[in-house]
């Protein structure tokens, strides 16, 4: 069958909402688009362990420490589910990690912001995981089978993450005036970067066209961002915190909140490496990877020795 005919059949399958499986025909651009998006997603899960891992030793109680450990372990798991799913596209995990280390592959910019106080553990779970869930619920319907299945599994685990974060920030908002101030400060710092997690406006998102045509993405950046805002505002109000956006206003006609313009200069600057922690996050990942090299070597040698017996 000619390539053109195959592409027509492929698009017909997509239009009929069929899932594409690893051994099925797929256009090379579809494969490359998925490798880029899925590896970026996996890297985000893994790099995302750093701001929270930073607080494990300083968690305020044993209960909080156990929860945070479980959450960070989940994030590692999420990274691994998506790495495995990405490998079904014919790329190795080593290659994906090496692209991250060379700066050729990105991860979510939100993790380039520091986690300064314990209230940030609340804001991250509530807002960052909340934004990620909004995105991932939509991605459960993505056209690539292994990606879709990993999203289903991840979504089951994410609601624990968001609730534990909200519990932390709600507790602090109810605490002393100093604690409440910390909660408000965490919201102030994480609100706008959380909205940036959905990416540029649809009109400035060059790859959205193909991603929607191929049903890799099922809903646009702006639609998902609006959904996140609409469900989050009342959660802030309920615990007496104020969303740091003077333009935020309920729009009766649209049945949605209007909101202020995102600082896109900041967005692009962090994407391009200018955020407060870009260098730190990447260097830490490289160091952990290189420090673990002897473990991988030893395990390989041990397995080889036992195989030959």
């Amino acid at each position: 069958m000619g390539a053109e005919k195959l592409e027509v059949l492929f698009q017909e399958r997509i239009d009929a909402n069929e899932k594409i499986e690893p051994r099925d025909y797929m256009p090379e651009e579809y494969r490359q688009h998925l490798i880029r998006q899925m590896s970026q997603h996996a890297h985000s899960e893994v790099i995302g362990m750093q701001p929270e891992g930073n607080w494990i030793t300083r968690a305020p109680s044993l209960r909080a420490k156990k929860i945070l450990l479980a959450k960070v372990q989940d994030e590692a798991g999420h990274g691994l589910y998506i790495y495995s799913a990405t490998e079904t596209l014919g790329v190795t995990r080593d290659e994906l990690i090496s692209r991250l280390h060379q700066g050729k592959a990105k991860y979510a910019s939100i993790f380039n912001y520091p986690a300064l106080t314990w209230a940030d553990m609340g804001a991250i779970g509530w807002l960052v995981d909340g934004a990620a869930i909004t995105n991932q619920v939509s991605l459960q319907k993505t056209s690539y089978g292994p990606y879709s299945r990993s999203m289903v599994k991840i979504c089951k685990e994410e609601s624990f993450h968001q609730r534990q974060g909200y519990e932390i920030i709600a507790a602090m908002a109810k605490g002393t005036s100093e604690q409440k101030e910390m909660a408000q400060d965490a919201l102030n710092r994480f609100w706008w970067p959380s909205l940036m997690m959905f990416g540029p406006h649809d009109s400035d998102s060059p790859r959205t066209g193909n991603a929607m045509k191929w049903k890799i993405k099922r809903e646009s950046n702006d639609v998902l961002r609006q959904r996140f805002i609409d469900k989050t505002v009342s959660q802030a109000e309920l615990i007496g915190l104020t969303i740091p956006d003077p333009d935020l206003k309920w729009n009766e006609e649209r049945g949605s909140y209007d909101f202020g313009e995102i600082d896109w200069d900041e967005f692009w600057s962090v994407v391009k490496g200018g955020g407060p922690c870009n260098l730190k996050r990447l260097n830490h990942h490289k160091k952990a990877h290189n420090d673990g090299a002897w473990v991988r070597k030893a395990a390989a040698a041990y397995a080889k020795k036992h195989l030959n017996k």
Partner: protein
Amino acid sequence: MFIQSKKGLPFKHVGSVHAFDKEMAVQNARDLYTRRGEGKGMWVVPASSIVAVDPSDNQSFFEPADDKVYRHPTFYELPDGIKNM
């Protein structure tokens, strides 16, 4: 990696792990796929041992079933009065 969610149910593919040997494969699989009581049983199989049907063979593999409708119980006409068969 295959998990049996309850005793008596079939094992279902859930994903994959990297490992150097069987023991590490099982440990990694446990850490990765059964953190919330997802399974009562677990199989880990080397990916290279799985024989998959190439999708381009789909027609010859799966189509012949379509023209044998008499394999389905609904193909048969029953006299009135028979309710459960």
